[in-house]
Every structure is written in structure tokens, then in C-alpha cells.
């Protein structure tokens, strides 16, 4: 028999009390993908016969159900046979559920009355025994049939979209996203926790592989963002609270006191110049340089408005000084300024909060913090930056000596079971960049210690070739130790990198003057907290989780909240920028639609049955459940509900029901799945002995009689 077996097996089955349920069953061969292991013809025949009482009126098999003729089988049957439920046994619903639901809708039936059950991914592809696979296919199909009987027609839920967008994080990804949306004509609130936007990129000197000057390419974007009429820039600010749901979020933002009136400040910089208090700049200069107690982090900062570092300000410490105030011509200094909370309403949120660097001190054997001439990658960026503390001179910690030999260690804190398992994606390229810069600036000998070299993006490998050609020495192996304890000739006064050269197959001790640790990226310490505030989820590492890692990388499980850049994992600049733009595009799509449809998989409370016990109140991570004090019942905001169903399962009164995955549907599916045993015959239930029908059960424990008589 082949896939053209069109002859349907008829059989009407009115279901008492439910109106007549008329189910059409369609079993797909998927070429030989399913039919090769599952006897699909038998499955269809069985369904028509054994599931008649369940309301199956027609069961067909076809070579490719997803093809146009396959879909037409369904639409024709709906029209001609009056079907009101459809079950397709084919591939995973993640692949074709939409296909068949759309087809169902085309024929005028509510799409949610169609179920797709997987007999390919869950059956034919993973089993070899044809009989067992066929029996399982029957069970899966019966589960779908029982389930679809309880499916209710559902309508999508529509919400209005507020055109404003909140972008959290003013790094390159956030800036890009903000600009894209603002340029399209919609308002954006760009919130940055630091005094200036720019993010990590603003600290870099050159960018790989093109070696453009980071500041040169970033600054214009920062300026655009700072001056764009559609962008409300909120630096030195944090998002403290988010309420609401897609289209209708309310965010509370705390603007920390700058002690400077931003409206009056001209950004002349004289305050910082006159400020007597010098402070080591741990943030922007990575501890290599100084700033003042009143400062803008760097010259190109946007906005130019400085902030007073209250911890270090002499006035705040001792009550006198006010040098800045004295010299400010604009009278912009405001020592009495307070933190301020503002509330904004937005339709969508883009989270672009970036990353932080792995703390190299955690790997004690690399000596960072102990050995002066072990530097982190960020320190090196500052050293090599012409605007940095050494004006671009690459020197040892003493500030004068140029290194003769430099070792760059890759994968510090990355691809390391003790710290982070993942690859930080950018370290290979940044290490190559460092090698190049060292060569360029000092002509020193450079060793790069790597595990694997990953140069996958455009022009990356070419850069690698170039660096090799420049004479950088590559040692494949993860250094075991970096030490000052020289014991061989030539090691004195050097720092020694102890490494197993896995290509040479031997231990090597390489004396160098300077070690640069190419530290990995990790989620910001407060990432989970912020994610929770926004109702999105994080992996156990702390990286935000995409709605789909491949197909929907900038969306999250929470409608209306998007992610861009390193918040979801390490990325280079081009990827971060691309994600910023992509997230913006997703948001713009939403805004243009003005409204959007939400999946109607929602929970709702039946107030008559709700006792107000408040068990469910803590179930919802999206705060969709609220307790109505006056009525004494809990209530679910459908638009905020993401449909996970946790509250449905938690309600002790059974007062919460969930559409799409109702108790009735799941319980029916269980019954269906257990209709057939492993051998394809009806599954034997555990049956209790019959209660004696006539009460005349003088079953006689003979032993008792004997015992008694004995």
C-alpha cells in the first residue's frame, strides 16, 4: 500500500452531552521517515476503528501531510465531512503545528481545534522495532484524539502597544537599539547606570580586526544618542521596578543625584580641574589612572555633565571645600541634590546591560594582583590607549620600562571547569590584537598561550595570519602557572610562564617581562536581579535566555522584553551592534502594528471557587496574579500571564483553569496514551476484585476453619 490511500474509513460517533464531535485523523508517512518504522496504514486503519467511540469519523494516511495536497485533505474533509476536530500525526508541533492550524483555519475551523502529535521525532526516528513503534504511534495518536475532544476554540488576545521604548544599558548594543528606534520616529528612554553612555567599548583603544580607533567610531554614536530629539537619555540612573505587560509597561527609574544641575552645566570641565581630591579610577581606567572627586569618566563622555563622587568628595566628607562650586561659572553645582524617582510608560523594553570581566585574582596561580607585571586585558587596553594613563605607552607597572618579552594568556576564566565552562568569544581576537599592539608599540617578543584559536568571523582569520606573520609566537597550551621564582639561567628578574606545549609535547618555562591575561566575560553580578525585575529568565550562569537561541535570539519568554548584546552571552562588537539593531527591528515591528495578538494560553481564576487562600499569589514570576482585597479572591491579568500553568497546578481549590492545557485536556490525553499497551493490544488496567454483586460471598478461609477446629 502506498501513500495515496485516500479511501477514508467512515464511522460517526455522536458524543452524548457534548454535541457531536467529529474528528479527522491524518497520519503522515513523511516519505519513509515515519512510514519506514511505523506501519502508518495500520495506524490509520486502527484509528478509524478503535477510536470511533472517541469521535473519529475519518482517518487517512498520506505521504506528506505538510504538502499542499496533504493540507487539502484536511481542508476538504472539514468542508465535506463536517469535521470539527483535527489530529495530525506527523512531526514535532514545533515544526508544523502552525502549518496545520493555519490550514484548519483556512477551512473555517478554529485553529486551536487542530492538534499535531509527533510520531516522527518521538517515535519513528528513535525506535527500530516496527511493531513497538506502531503500537506507540497508536498510543500517541489516541492521546491526541482524546485531547482534541476537549480542545476549545480559542481567540487570540489583543493588546495596544505604547510606542515608547525603554532601553536599559548604554553600551554599544543599547545605543544602537536606541538610535534605530529613535530614527524611525519613536520615543526612547535610554537608561545607563554610569555617568556616561559608551560602555566597555569606550575604554578600548583599537578594535579587532580592522584596528579602527574605538573612540572614533563610537563617539559619533554616543553624540547622536545624546542629542537625538526622540531619545531621553537617563545616565547615572537605574531601573528599580517594572510593572505591566507587553505594550503597557510602567518602569520606575531612580536617577541618582549627580550634585550637578544638568540643565545649567555646560560641560566645561573646570570643576574637575579645580577639584583638589584625586581618586584612583577603578572603573574607566581599570585602576591605572586617576580621576577627581567630581568627574566625567572620559573626555568624550555623553553627557558631559560631571558627577560628584560623594564617597570621596572633601565637602561631603568634611563639610568644607566647595572648590567646584566656586569655580563653576554656570552655578550648576547642587550639593543638596537628592536621588529622584521617575515613572515612565513604555510598550517594549530592550535589555542591553552587557557583561563584566572575570576577576583574574580568582586564578591565584596566574599571580594577578600579586605579581606587578601581570596585567588584565582591560588594563592593557588602557595602557595601549593613547588617551589612557600612559598616553598609549606600553610599559611595565613601574610606568617607564618597556617590556622586551610579553606573554598573552588566552581563556583566563573561560573554558575552565573551575570557573566558566563557556568560551568568551572575544578573547582570541583581543589577544591577537594585544600581540599586534605590543609589536607595533614596542617591538617586543610576544608569546600567545592559547588552547584553541577561534577566528570565525569575517576577516578574523586574516588578522590571525597577519599577527603570525608579524612574528608573534604561539604556544598551544594552558599555562599552569605564572611565577617570579626563576630557577634557570635567564629567568632572573623575569616572570616565568610555566606551560605544557601540547604541540611540542613538553613542559616549557618561558620567561617574560609582562603577562597579559585575556580575561573572559561573565554576566553582571546584578544580572539575575535585574532579569527578575523585568520578568525574564537567566541560565544558571546568569546569561539571559533567548526565546529561541537560534531562531529568536533577541526575544525573551516575556512578551515585550527583548535582549541585545552581551546580556545573553559573550559577543564581539559587530554581533552586539547587530543584536541592538535586531531588537530595535522587533520593537519597531510591534510599534508599527499598534496592537499585537497574544497566544491564548492563559490562566484564569473562577472567582466563585476561589477561596482567597493566596497560595497562587507567589506562583507567578510575572506578577500577573493579584489579590483583590475587597472581593477576597485572587485574579489573573491575562495580558501579563505567560501561560506556564504553574498557578493552575498549584491551586488547591481547583479554581484556576488554563486554556490550551486544561486539566481535562491533559487527563484525557493520559487516558488516550494508555489505551494501548506496549504490544498494541488494549492496556490492562489494574483492576480491583469485584465487590460481591449479591452480597453472598461466603468465601471460606479453610485454614481458619481448620485452625479453629484444631
Amino acid at each position, binding site marked *: 500500500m502506498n501513500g495515496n490511500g485516500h479511501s477514508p474509513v467512515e464511522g460517526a460517533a455522536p458524543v452524548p452531552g457534548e454535541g457531536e464531535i467529529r474528528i479527522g485523523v491524518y497520519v503522515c508517512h513523511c516519505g519513509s521517515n515515519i512510514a519506514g518504522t511505523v506501519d502508518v496504514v495500520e495506524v490509520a486503519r486502527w484509528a478509524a476503528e478503535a477510536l470511533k467511540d472517541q469521535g473519529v469519523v475519518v482517518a487517512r494516511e498520506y505521504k506528506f501531510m505538510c504538502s499542499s495536497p496533504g493540507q487539502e485533505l484536511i481542508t476538504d474533509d472539514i468542508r465535506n465531512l463536517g469535521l470539527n476536530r483535527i489530529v495530525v500525526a506527523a512531526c514535532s508541533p514545533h515544526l508544523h503545528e502552525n502549518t496545520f492550524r493555519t490550514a484548519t483555519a483556512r477551512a473555517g475551523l478554529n485553529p486551536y481545534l487542530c492538534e499535531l502529535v509527533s510520531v516522527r521525532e518521538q517515535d519513528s526516528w528513535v525506535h527500530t522495532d516496527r511493531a513497538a513503534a506502531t503500537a506507540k504511534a497508536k498510543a500517541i495518536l489516541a492521546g491526541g484524539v482524546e485531547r482534541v475532544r476537549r480542545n476549545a476554540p480559542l481567540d487570540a488576545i489583543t493588546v495596544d502597544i505604547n510606542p515608547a521604548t525603554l532601553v536599559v544599558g548604554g553600551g554599544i548594543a543599547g545605543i544602537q537599539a536606541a538610535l534605530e528606534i529613535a530614527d524611525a520616529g519613536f520615543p526612547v528612554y535610554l537608561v545607563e547606570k554610569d555617568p556616561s553612555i559608551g560602555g566597555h567599548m569606550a575604554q578600548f583603544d583599537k578594535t579587532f580586526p580592522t584596528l579602527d580607533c574605538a573612540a572614533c567610531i563610537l563617539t559619533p554614536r554616543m553624540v547622536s544618542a545624546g542629542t537625538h530629539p526622540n531619545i531621553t537619555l537617563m545616565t547615572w540612573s537605574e531601573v528599580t521596578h517594572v510593572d505591566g505587560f507587553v505594550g503597557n509597561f510602567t518602569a520606575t527609574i531612580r536617577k541618582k543625584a549627580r550634585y550637578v544641575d544638568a540643565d545649567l552645566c555646560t560641560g566645561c570641565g573646570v570643576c574637575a580641574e579645580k577639584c583638589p581630591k584625586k581618586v584612583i579610577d577603578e572603573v574607566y581606567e581599570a585602576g591605572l589612572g586617576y580621576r577627581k572627586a567630581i568627574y566625567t569618566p572620559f573626555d568624550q563622555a555623553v553627557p558631559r555633565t560631571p558627577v560628584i563622587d560623594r564617597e570621596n568628595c572633601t565637602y561631603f566628607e568634611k563639610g568644607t571645600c566647595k572648590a567646584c562650586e566656586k569655580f563653576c561659572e554656570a552655578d550648576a553645582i547642587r550639593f543638596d541634590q537628592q536621588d529622584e524617582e521617575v515613572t515612565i510608560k513604555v510598550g517594549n523594553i530592550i535589555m542591553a546591560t552587557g557583561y563584566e570581566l572575570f576577576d583574574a585574582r580568582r586564578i591565584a596561580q596566574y599571580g594577578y594582583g600579586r605579581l606587578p607585571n601581570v596585567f588584565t586585558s582591560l588594563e592593557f587596553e588602557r595602557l595601549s590607549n593613547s588617551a589612557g594613563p600612559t598616553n598609549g605607552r606600553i610599559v611595565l607597572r613601574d610606568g617607564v620600562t618597556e617590556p622586551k618579552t610579553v606573554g598573552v594568556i588566552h581563556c583566563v576564566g573561560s573554558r575552565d571547569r573551575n570557573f566558566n565552562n563557556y568560551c568568551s568569544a572575544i578573547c582570541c581576537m583581543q589577544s591577537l590584537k594585544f600581540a599586534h599592539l605590543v609589536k607595533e608599540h614596542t617591538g617586543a617578543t610576544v608569546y600567545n598561550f592559547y588552547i584553541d584559536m577561534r577566528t570565525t568571523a569575517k576577516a578574523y582569520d586574516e588578522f590571525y595570519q597577519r599577527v603570525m606573520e608579524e612574528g608573534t609566537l604561539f604556544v598551544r597550551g594552558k599555562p599552569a602557572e605564572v611565577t617570579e621564582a626563576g630557577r634557570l639561567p635567564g629567568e632572573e628578574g623575569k616572570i616565568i610562564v610555566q606551560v605544557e606545549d601540547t604541540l611540542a609535547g613538553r613542559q616549557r618555562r618561558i620567561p617574560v617581562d609582562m603577562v597579559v591575561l585575556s580575561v573572559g566575560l561573565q554576566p553582571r553580578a546584578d544580572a539575575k536581579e535585574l532579569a527578575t525585575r523585568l520578568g525574564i529568565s537567566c541560565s544558571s550562569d546568569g546569561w539571559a535566555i533567548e526565546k529561541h537561541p537560534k531562531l529568536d535570539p533577541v526575544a525573551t519568554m516575556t512578551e515585550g522584553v527583548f535582549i541585545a548584546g552581551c546580556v545573553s552571552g559573550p559577543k564581539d562588537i559587530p554581533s552586539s551592534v547587530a543584536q541592538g539593531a535586531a531588537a530595535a527591528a522587533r520593537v519597531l515591528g510591534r510599534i508599527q502594528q499598534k496592537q499585537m495578538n497574544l497566544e491564548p494560553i492563559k490562566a484564569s481564576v473562577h472567582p466563585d471557587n476561589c477561596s482567597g487562600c493566596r497560595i497562587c499569589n507567589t506562583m507567578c514570576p510575572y506578577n500577573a496574579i493579584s489579590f483583590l482585597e475587597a472581593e477576597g479572591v485572587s485574579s489573573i491579568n491575562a495580558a501579563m500571564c505567560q501561560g506556564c500553568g504553574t498557578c493552575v497546578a498549584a491551586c488547591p481549590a481547583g479554581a484556576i483553569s488554563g486554556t490550551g492545557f486544561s486539566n481535562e485536556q491533559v487527563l484525557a490525553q493520559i487516558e488516550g496514551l494508555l489505551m494501548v499497551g506496549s504490544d498494541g493490544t488494549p492496556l490492562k488496567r489494574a483492576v480491583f476484585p469485584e*465487590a*460481591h454483586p449479591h452480597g453472598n460471598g461466603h468465601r471460606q478461609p479453610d485454614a481458619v476453619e481448620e485452625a479453629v477446629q484444631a
Partner: protein
Amino acid sequence: MSPSAKPKLAIFGAASCGGCDVAIVNIHEHIVDVANAFDIVLWPTVMDGKYSDIEALADGEIAVTLVSGSMRTDETIHLARLLRRKSQFMVSFGSCAGEGCIPGLANLSSRQEILDTAFSTPSTDNPEGLRPSWEFGAAEGVLHLPEFEPLLRTLDQVVDVDYTIPGCPPESGQIWAALEAVVKALNGTGPLPPKGSVLGAGESTVCDECGRKRDVKKIGRFVRIQQVAEIDPELCLLEQGLPCNGPATRSGCGALCPAASAPCIGCYGAAPGVIDYGARLMSAFASVVDATEPAEIDRVLDGIADPVGQFYRFSLAGSLLRSGRSAWQSDGE
């Protein structure tokens, strides 16, 4: 018995403690209303009556039969079926008939274990290891005992039930409300409750009627009542860590136990539409445990000393895993 135009009422106690009968008597002055509304043809606890009289009635001649007690012997099952045949409406009265009540916990053990335990307690003088015999040849003749069934069954597992009145026992006020509804339906002044209705109870759970203050739930530990020196008279018992079954237990009792600082033990059974009482309560309790690590979760759960008893105290014989439901489904009677 004089012929009567009044509808006939039978009240039958199967394996029960008699508390249901006491509860009916406790409707006090309304008992007169019941006597006025019905011709009581059977109420062994309170008045004379013979089962043979019931046999003599036509099928469906009894308007309403209230059955309390569970089905523990072949004899009670037989009587329940007889009464079903003779009655228009069969009402499952009280927890035993409805879901097995405390005696339903017997379904955790085999009847052999039950008999062995009962006849080998430390005060039992039974050197021969005697057990009751369904049919015993005494010196003078044969003595029969009704057979102790392998499982305790609820009424609806043995016969088709029209209405259910929950509670252990049902609160007397609710009993009258339920009977009144039936009386009104019978004399045409009120609607007949749909078949399968639960009468004399609320649509929600005990918290609905409980006056204690409630907040969101995060249970860091469950405590046993003897460990609490003083129970806060105002605050939700569950929030005090006491495993109170109120959230899952059908309303209707007036939340009497929590009002007396005693956690609800669940005698009114499950809320409307709930399939398995224990599953609902289990899910609710576990959901609000304030822990994420398995060891920590277990530490909190250790506070629930006896999970089966906690979740199935009254409903075991009606539960998904310990009921004898399939027995009557296959029974043609």
C-alpha cells in the same frame, strides 16, 4: 404501615461511627419538619424498621435515601444496592459514604493485615491465632459473619449516586438546607438540583469562610501542632507552618476548626471539580515551600510527618490510587 401520600425517606447507616445520625438528630426542631415532609420508612438508629419491609416496596418507591457509612462488608454493599433499586434519589451522606473518611485509610493495608493486627494486639489473648470466620461451625450450628471486603468502598463505587452531602459529619445547619432543597423539589416549589450535585456545602474552600488574616504564602517550615507553644489566633494557620487542609477542603462547615486554632483536617472533601483531593493539597503545599535546593526542600517537607495521612486523611478510598472505583463500573447491577 399506613399508606401515606408523603414521599418516603430512608436513612441507612453502613459502616459508620453514627456521627452522621447524631448530626441529623441535631437539626433539632427541623426534625419535625422532616417528619412532616416525609414518611420515614427506615432509620435503624432511631426507629424501628425492617429491611424486609424495604424489600417489599416497589422499585423507586422510596423518594430519598440517605446513606451514611462506607461499604466494608458484602452485606452493606447488598443493602446499598437494594436501597438504590427502591429509591428515586440516592444521597451519599457524610464523608464515609462520600470518600471513605478515616476508615478509608484501611485501604493502605490488606484485609489480612487488618485482621492480623486487630487480633494480635498486646492485650489480645489469642494463642491459637484465631481470626473471624465468615462461616464458622460452632458446636450447635453454623454461624455466618458478613464478609470483610478486601477494600473499603465509597457509596458511589457501589451504586449510582444522585447527590452528595459532604462532611464528617455534615454540619447540622447544612443538612437541613440540603433536605429542604430536596423537599422543595419534590413538592414542586423549587428546582431539582442537577444530578451529581453536592448539597449542603459551598462552592469554594474553607479559607473562604475562615476569618484568619492571610498573606502570600512562603512556607519555610512545617511544624507539628504540639511544637507550637502558642498559636496566633489571628493569622492563617498555614502561614504559621501548621499543615492546615483548609485551602483544599470544600467550604460549608464554617471553618470551625481553624477558628478553634485547630488546623482543618479536610472532612468536607475536595472542592468542586477536583478529581483527587490529595493531589491538589500536595501540589499547593509543595508549591509554597520556600526552598529551591533538594536538601532544603526535603528539610521543609520533613515537617509533614505523614504525607499519606495528611493528604488522604478522609479521601483515600475515593482517591485515584486507592479507590475501588472500577468495581462497580463493571457491575451490571
